[in-house]
């Protein structure tokens, strides 16, 4: 305990340190430089999070050269701020216009947008911000206290464990859907197939690329998400003549009601716990966290019948989970030098530019940098909540912008965002195509969320399955011999049974009905 206080002390001193800055020829003494960089980072992060399609990866890449001239601590604090700031901002577009600003806000769309349609965008945004803040504080503390031992836990996850975890994830994708079961399964499978496009990792064979070299690395997640949610939503909106004006008139209050407060704290706690745990795992951990949190809530909540129709739990839990996951995903980076996602890979680049090789020795050799960064995350979260709560009123006003002005700007931002990922016009065409596919799905009452989950998990699952089989020399029993892996598989079977026994479910519903 003493150590933690001491270490966080080092961090706070670093974050609030006054430095003299050379600007042009001018030297300005006593500037709280690091805290300013933190502010710049979270502001930028919020902004790009709100803009659909433009994500932290492209932004951080563009800012890398700027960081050459900064001090290492200042540079990394700013880049980290962009990352978790984007997690905050990403939920805003998800709730207001049904476009996930970030991969992790895909599930926020489901209930967040429904809340907005009912005139409850204010409470939805507030709960997203409060949940994120709480999760950010808790997970920062977790990083500070347990980073090294948790990194060891992350190493316990091999291909067997990942595969089984993803099986569980896919099974829960079916639970995500609130419509027809068959349609949800069909969407998961369509997602799996789309995920297979590209070069096979093991053999190098190109699959479903139709001779297009642009498809050799597969279809980008942002492209699919922007198409299926963004473009599709715009088509669907334009179809209705009177459309969107209705839902700003109904805005009653900006703040969560007492009832809301009562309903949201438990989901926030559960989301934070799940997010912190899954965020540690490299490769899709934080993303699985938000899907997992939603599924969990839907299973345990008293209000599960409201899910998909604007349940506040459906926003609170995944938003807490994705922010907690965003913070704990720094653990493998800072303790092992292993990036857990594309943004973390960029952070490694930024550290290399500064002449720091990320790895186990960063903590002991550069304690000011390590603890400064961790402390800055807490400070940054505090800034974000101070920044975001007053902004809610402004975001709501955005909904009063006439749709004929709003939708072309959204389209432009999405196109810019999708293009910026690999500078290929092809991706923009692809996005339009997915917009059409999304529209067809809406017409057929098939939901896009299970497709997205299948799309992300499919290729990862295949990769881990085949790697596990290679390492075990073809012994499939190895999945059951590893305790963690076996645990996930058992959980999947139990969950599957719960879904596949509609008779059982019906009986339960009757029982509940009888009680009432």
């Amino acid at each position, binding site marked *: 305990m003493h150590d933690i206080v001491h270490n966080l002390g080092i961090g706070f001193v670093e974050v609030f340190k006054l430095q003299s800055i050379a600007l042009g020829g001018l030297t300005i003494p006593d500037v709280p430089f690091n805290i300013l960089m933190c502010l710049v980072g979270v502001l930028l992060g919020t902004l790009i999070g709100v803009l659909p399609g433009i994500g932290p990866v492209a932004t951080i*890449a563009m800012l890398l*050269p700027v960081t050459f001239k900064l001090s290492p601590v200042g540079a990394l604090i700013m880049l980290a701020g962009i990352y978790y700031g984007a997690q905050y901002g990403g939920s805003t577009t998800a709730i207001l216009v049904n476009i996930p600003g970030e991969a992790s806000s895909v599930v926020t769309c489901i209930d967040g947008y429904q809340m907005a349609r009912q005139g409850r965008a204010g409470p939805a945004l507030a709960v997203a911000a409060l949940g994120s803040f709480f999760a950010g504080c808790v997970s920062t503390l977790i990083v500070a206290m347990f980073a090294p031992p948790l990194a060891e836990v992350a190493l316990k996850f091999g*291909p067997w464990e990942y595969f089984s975890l993803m099986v569980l994830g896919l099974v829960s994708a079916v639970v995500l859907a609130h419509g027809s079961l068959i349609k949800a399964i069909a969407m998961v499978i369509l997602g799996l197939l789309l995920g297979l496009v590209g070069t096979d990792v093991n053999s190098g064979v190109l699959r479903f690329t139709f001779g297009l070299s642009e498809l050799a690395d597969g279809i980008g997640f942002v492209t699919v998400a922007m198409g299926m949610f963004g473009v599709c939503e715009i088509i669907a909106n334009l179809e209705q003549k009177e459309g969107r004006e209705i839902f700003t008139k109904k805005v009653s209050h900006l703040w969560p009601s007492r009832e809301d407060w009562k309903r949201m704290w438990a989901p926030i706690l559960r989301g934070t716990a799940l997010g912190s745990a899954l965020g540690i795992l490299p490769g899709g951990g934080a993303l699985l966290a938000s899907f997992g949190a939603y599924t969990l809530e839907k299973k345990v909540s008293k209000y599960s019948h409201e899910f998909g129709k604007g349940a506040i739990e459906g926003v609170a839990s995944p938003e807490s989970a994705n922010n907690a996951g965003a913070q704990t995903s720094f653990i493998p980076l800072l303790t092992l030098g*292993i990036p857990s996602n594309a943004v973390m890979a960029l952070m490694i680049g930024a550290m290399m530019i500064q002449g720091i090789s990320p790895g186990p020795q960063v903590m002991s050799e550069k304690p000011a940098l390590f603890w400064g960064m961790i402390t800055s995350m807490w400070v940054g979260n505090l800034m974000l909540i101070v920044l975001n709560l007053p902004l809610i009123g402004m975001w709501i006003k955005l909904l009063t912008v006439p749709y004929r002005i709003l939708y072309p700007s959204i389209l432009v931002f999405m196109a810019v965002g999708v293009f910026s990922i690999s500078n290929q016009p092809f991706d923009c065409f692809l996005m339009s195509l997915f917009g059409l596919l999304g529209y067809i799905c809406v017409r057929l009452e098939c939901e896009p969320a299970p497709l997205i989950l299948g799309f992300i998990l499919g290729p990862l699952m295949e*990769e881990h399955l085949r790697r596990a089989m290679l390492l075990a020399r073809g012994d499939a029993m190895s999945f059951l011999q590893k305790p963690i892996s076996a645990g996930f598989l058992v959980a999947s079977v139990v969950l599957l049974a719960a879904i596949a026994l509609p008779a059982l479910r019906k009986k339960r519903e009757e029982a509940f009905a009888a009680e009432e």
Partner: protein
Amino acid sequence: MRRILLFCALAFAAQAAPAQGWPAKPLHLVVPYPPGGPVDVSARLVAQHAQQALGQPVLVENKPGAGGNIGADFVAKSAPDGYTLLMGAIATHAINPSLYARIPYDALKDFRHVTLVVQVPNVLVVNNDLPARSVQELVAYAKAHPGKLDFASGSTGSTGHLAGEMFKMMTGTFMVHIPYRGAAPAAADLLAGRVQLMFDNLASALPNVKAGKLRALAVTTRARSSFLPELPTLDESGLKGFDMSTWWGVMAPAKTPAAAVERLSAVLLGAIDAPEVRERLRAMGAEPSAIRTPEQFSAFVASELQTYAVLVKRSGAKVE
């Protein structure tokens, strides 16, 4: 002597440039990989330095895809006016031409190879639980336990994979190749002991080696690395002639005017020799290279192409 030459080159360039007016507008440096990796980071470093010398912005543009082939092909087919450049790498210009069944450009004929920017050795690292403490012990262990060892790599056809194949070939051992999606998850499984060895990039392996979490057995280049001067080379350890490194450098479309190529070469050499750039490239494991002129670079690319043609064929790796 070198200074005089450089001066002559600069003087010549200074003379030739105004006549031609190059560069009169911003330059584009295409990186055929996603942002954040070492190729991207070094491109941004060098670009920032070069734009001061050229008096025009040098914009780094990422065009990732198909193992770098999309970006390389884009530059090969760009106007040869000196404004579109490529950060070509061992993958795009030595390995992929043999690895891919169809490749839309010619790594030699379609490019002017201007300046080699970075050359980094790979290191043979093993998990701490493996009893082998030297290359000889590793070979003995592999022979005593055939088919038991796994080696990880960042992808099929990567330098890490091909170094492993070369190792197997030269020592007559058998190990199973486990490909990953990038070197980072491969390193994670190596740390955890699910795979036993890996030919990893020096810069990424170094922190874990220094922290005692992985054991380095040898470097893959002919010369020892100044980062781990006590570490023997594979060549010294009985694998005579083993010499592999990861490299990348600036290239231009084939018909780019000679004057522009020469000026660019001088500017880029100035950039990589500048102490602040050199220091940061060193953080990526790069040491000053003996390859400094466009001619030397071209000859180097040609010899690498040959080396990997043989190696890729023997490894059986291919992308169709």
